């Protein structure tokens, strides 16, 4: 076997990782938008606690999140009993389980840029839309969302990149099943542990290049977007 190129196993891990990151990003943008909107505009006393819960994954080690997900989504955990009762089975060791784990893990990376973007808009654009007769839903979709576009780009890029780089949770939740739950980070870990340093280098090198490109792209996008984001 060649030791200097990516093996079929490596490629399987790469595709799986991209799939996981894409699904997670798409779902998270949908879920995070109303949450970020609420956090940006509410005066509720729950704003603090909910905002803290959203930020928790930034602070907690992935092993903590992975461990609790493994336990709560298993046969003895409340989430596991719920998914089982719904006929979905148990989530650990499945792709769906990894998606759930990634949603939790990447939540702050989606919510925080969106929340900042919504807060940056202020109330003026919406008030103007209202005086022109737009309904709240209409003004949200035709005014707020387009104006917050830079926030969405940042949220999408960060969520995608952060999910690609995820390790601890997928290790604890995934069960390292080829083509199903073995993502790139776990594959690299296996290579290193098995002292297959050449293979580890190739795959790890790809990750470094990927991360670098993402961060450079973000910097290019942001200043231009910030100008767009100050509309009035």
């Amino acid at each position, binding site marked *: 076997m060649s030791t200097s190129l990516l093996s079929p196993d490596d490629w399987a891990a790469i595709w799986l990782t991209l799939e996981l990151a894409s699904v997670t990003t798409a779902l998270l943008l949908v879920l995070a938008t109303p949450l970020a909107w609420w956090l940006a505009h509410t005066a509720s006393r729950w704003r603090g606690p909910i905002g803290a819960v959203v930020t928790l994954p930034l602070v907690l080690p992935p092993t903590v999140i992975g461990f609790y997900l*493994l*336990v709560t*989504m*298993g*046969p*003895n955990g409340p989430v596991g009993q719920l998914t089982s009762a719904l006929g979905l*089975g*148990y989530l*650990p*060791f499945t792709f769906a389980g990894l998606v759930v784990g990634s949603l939790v893990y990447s939540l702050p990376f989606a919510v925080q840029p969106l929340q900042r973007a919504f807060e940056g808009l202020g109330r003026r654009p919406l008030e103007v839309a209202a005086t022109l007769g737009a309904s709240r839903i209409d003004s949200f979709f035709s005014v707020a969302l387009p104006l917050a576009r830079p926030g969405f780009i940042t949220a999408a890029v960060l969520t995608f990149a952060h999910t690609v780089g995820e390790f601890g949770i997928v*290790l*604890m939740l995934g*069960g*390292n*099943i080829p083509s199903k739950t073995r993502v790139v980070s776990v594959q690299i*870990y*296996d290579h*290193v*542990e*098995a*002292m297959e340093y050449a293979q580890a280098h190739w795959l790890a090198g790809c990750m470094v290049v990927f991360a670098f490109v993402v961060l450079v792209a973000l910097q290019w996008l942001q200043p231009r977007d910030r100008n767009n984001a100050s509309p009035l």
Partner: protein
Amino acid sequence: MIQRRFAPLALSLLAALAASAHADEVSVAVAANFTAPMQRIAAEFEKDSGHKAVLSFGATGKFYAQINNGAPFGILLAADDTTPAKLAQEGKGVAASRFTYAIGQLVLWSKQAGYVDDKGAVLKMGDYRHIAIANPKLAPYGLAAMETLKNLGLTDQVTPKIVQGENIGQTYQFAASGNAQLGFVALSQVMEDGKLREGSAWMVPSAMHEPIRQDAIVLSSAKDNAAATALMQYLQGDKARAIIRSYGYAF
């Protein structure tokens, strides 16, 4: 676990510095499957000898990489016999110090009582969805499990159900959380004081796989460390062996 270990460690370090200049300290890298017995042995050893043993737990392959990169371990208690042999050959370990401190016992285990029969027929008949096995590339218990499946002619049937732990500790976690109905784990993980702690188990006959010889070696950096020498002797003494045996290891 790390944090829980940290405070007492720091405190006792201070105490050791203050109290005695004779007592030595040795860092020990311990294979994950030997965690429980080694904690007890280290406590006894410290009482009996006055020396201090600072324990780190993990996968043998990881320890090897860390030792190669200058990790300050004095002793390696490996999960296999090839890693210590390699370290001795490469001059990173003291060849003469190497010995087998335990022979591991592979067990097919379920958290459910009465689920695993005493012949392992559940492997063939069971309607289990997942079976946890340590990564055979990395862990000797995983390799022994795969050899056992091959011997039983069940490799093809069981493989789609395998979930892999990166070491035997994680493999146990998969089975203990009930996410995997079955797991090939180390007997030491499910046994205490000569009894199964919970669930049901099949002791895999030793003829089913190559023996899981777990070797210890003193690393070159610690060849003059009195605590390292004392601990290696202690591991071969009656007290330590009784503890090791009570966790289901052979010699």
